[in-house]
């Protein structure tokens, strides 16, 4: 144990003292400050581009009410419209030619063509078809105008139409053990944030562990070390040493980001009193479970990356072989949306029980809706069982690989190493 401790200590101290560590530790909170300031600035100074629109109305009688509802939208978050011209039953070809040249010259942003036969599609002609934000209010305004026209054709008074056609708002309220909370996208925010954080830190620190093993090989320090400590001790010490570095960094980040978040919210409110941040309530049990899966994932992936480092003798070879360790992680991240859409489905259950995917997918499920305790327990047992197996196999590869220089081993060769005594 003393040797493992010595290795942890050396690994930790030499890493924490590097410029790279100090810079990367400082840069995240600093980037956070810049981001918060930028967001606060953008919220208060959002560029309000008004969409200039012309309406060609072949159906007749619809244009004025479309114009009305577009220009008097009560929702300030959607794009603002100004309807520059309306054309009722025009000479379409000629008018369209004019409008097209206006769009091209920049005098107009878009024009609508409402067909005479309303079973046909309404056309939106624009230079910027990527601006999806305009589609929803345009569709709503057109539908409202059309319904209004049909109702008044059936003798209903125009002033009543607004009241008849008024819909309801749907507010999402999340139900959980800890009570109910109005949902304004914070669940999804936390879920996506978690996935990104887990994926990137598992990857980043896995690669750091791999390079650390490689460094001992390329500087030929390995044989001196391996003559005093067992490969398993060296591997364990290295993983824990890098883990110590990682957790030091996370602690600094979490504390500084926590301070920043409360400060940032206050600042944003100062810039724009009407903006309200949704309350981010993170229960302690969630944090503990997430930490559990994070630690597990960290040991699992670090051991795999360390084995890759031990099997290779230079960075290029390691770069080619690291897919072995990265593969499952990429697999996990490419399925996160399946779990996010329906975190209680059988598919989500199966995926989140697979030990290589659990470190990312189970915290994701946890953040959306707490899974039953037996599912969590099973996943943890499977994960830690796999960790023992993977560390055992990695130590084998390590034992053989650390003294092998030269060509990169193939996958069958790696498997053969597992059988060496």
């Amino acid at each position, binding site marked *: 144990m003393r040797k493992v401790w010595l290795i942890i200590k050396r690994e930790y101290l030499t890493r924490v003292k590097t410029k790279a560590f100090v810079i990367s530790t400082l840069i995240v909170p600093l980037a956070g400050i810049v981001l918060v300031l930028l967001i606060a600035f953008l919220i208060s100074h959002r560029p309000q581009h008004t969409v200039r629109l012309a309406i060609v109305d072949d159906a007749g009688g619809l244009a004025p009410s479309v114009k009305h509802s577009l220009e008097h939208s009560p929702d300030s978050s959607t794009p603002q419209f100004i309807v520059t011209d309306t054309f009722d039953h025009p000479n379409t070809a000629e008018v369209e030619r004019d409008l097209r040249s206006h769009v091209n010259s920049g005098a107009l942003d878009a024009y609508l063509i409402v067909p005479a036969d309303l079973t046909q599609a309404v056309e939106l002609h624009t230079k910027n078809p990527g601006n999806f934000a305009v589609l929803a209010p345009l569709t709503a305004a057109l539908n409202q105008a059309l319904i209004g026209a049909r109702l008044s054709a059936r003798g209903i008074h125009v002033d009543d139409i607004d009241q008849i056609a008024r819909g309801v708002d749907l507010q999402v309220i999340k139900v959980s053990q800890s009570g109910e909370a109005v949902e304004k996208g914070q669940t999804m925010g936390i879920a996506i944030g978690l996935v990104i954080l887990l994926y990137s830190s598992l990857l980043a620190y896995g690669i750091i562990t791999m390079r650390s093993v490689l460094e001992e090989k390329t*500087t030929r320090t390995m044989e001196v070390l391996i003559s005093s400590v067992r490969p398993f001790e060296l591997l364990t010490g290295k993983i824990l040493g890098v883990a110590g570095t990682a957790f030091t960094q996370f602690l600094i980040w979490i504390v500084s980001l926590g301070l920043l978040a409360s400060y940032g919210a206050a600042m944003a409110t100062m810039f724009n009193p009407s903006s309200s941040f949704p309350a981010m309530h993170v229960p302690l049990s969630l944090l503990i479970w997430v930490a559990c899966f994070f630690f597990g994932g960290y040991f699992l992936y670090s051991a795999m990356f360390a084995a890759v480092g031990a099997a290779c003798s230079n960075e290029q070879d390691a770069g080619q072989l690291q897919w072995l360790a990265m593969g499952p992680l990429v697999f996990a991240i490419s399925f996160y949306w399946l779990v996010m859409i329906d975190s209680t489905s059988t598919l989500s259950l199966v995926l989140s029980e697979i030990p290589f995917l659990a470190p990312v997918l189970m915290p994701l499920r946890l953040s959306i809706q707490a899974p039953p305790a037996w599912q969590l327990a099973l996943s943890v047992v499977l994960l830690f069982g796999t960790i023992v197996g993977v560390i055992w196999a990695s130590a084998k590869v390590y034992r053989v690989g650390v003294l092998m220089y030269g060509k990169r081993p193939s996958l069958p060769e790696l498997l053969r190493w597992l059988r060496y005594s």
Partner: protein
Amino acid sequence: MEAISLEKVTKFYDGVHAVNDVTLRVRRGAILGLLGPNGAGKTSTIRMIMNILVPDAGSIRVFDQPVSDATRQSIGYLPEERGLYPRMQVRAVIVFLAALRGMPEPEANRLAREWLDRFELGDWSEKQVHDLSKGMQQKVQFISAILHKPPLIILDEPFSGLDPLNVATVKDVMLEMRSQGSTVVLSTHRMEQVERLCDSICLIDKGRNILDGDLRAIKQSYGKNTIQIEFNGPDGFLSHPAVSSVNRFANGAEAKLKPGAAAQEFLKAAVQSSAQITRFAVLEPSLNDIFIEKTGHA
């Protein structure tokens, strides 16, 4: 009691015998030269003694104990593949490695200072390893191999990269350690060093122990069949029928006599030729000759 004993040790990688049925005993308090061409199996043998590799057959004992993590604590090891953490301070590296071998850190610190001074590296002890020249790093490596005063020292090519002055210092330290009762195993290609330092040798070729024993006894067993001759003038006499092979130098030659041939006959022929003889000596074969004869290549 032997410091090391190997009993029919075999190791093979993917069907190739790296070490093949090697039996060897290293006497306590002796300096053993482990010789052999490149790829002969010397490093594999050493790694098995260090318990880095496990033999496929046979057994190895160190100080009468089967090799284990415990036995290697008593060994100071300078591997052929050597290196140090480039971004660590010189003394910190030495102390770290000594601590891994079980030495308390304060004592390791004190000894590291002493040794660094002895190797004239005192001013460099706070510098980072990558600031040191290759020769200096070699010395740091050597210090870290012997700092914990091991009763058995295994040195794989300890002289490579050292200038003559440092070769002399390393040699002195080795003799000093022997006089304090330590056993030294020295793997090297430098025959003149082995000849001067070693009490016994073991010659390994193609994984097999082809010759081992007391160095003096081995040389005597070959008899005095080597002639060192220095001369000026034509060298036609070197093709005398008593001579089996000649190694020509600028001002002379080393000639090996056929078995049973008399040195006297050769000297007569040399004197009768028009060459002017300045030196003539009858010697035991050099280790180099024995090496070449035994392995068939240099």
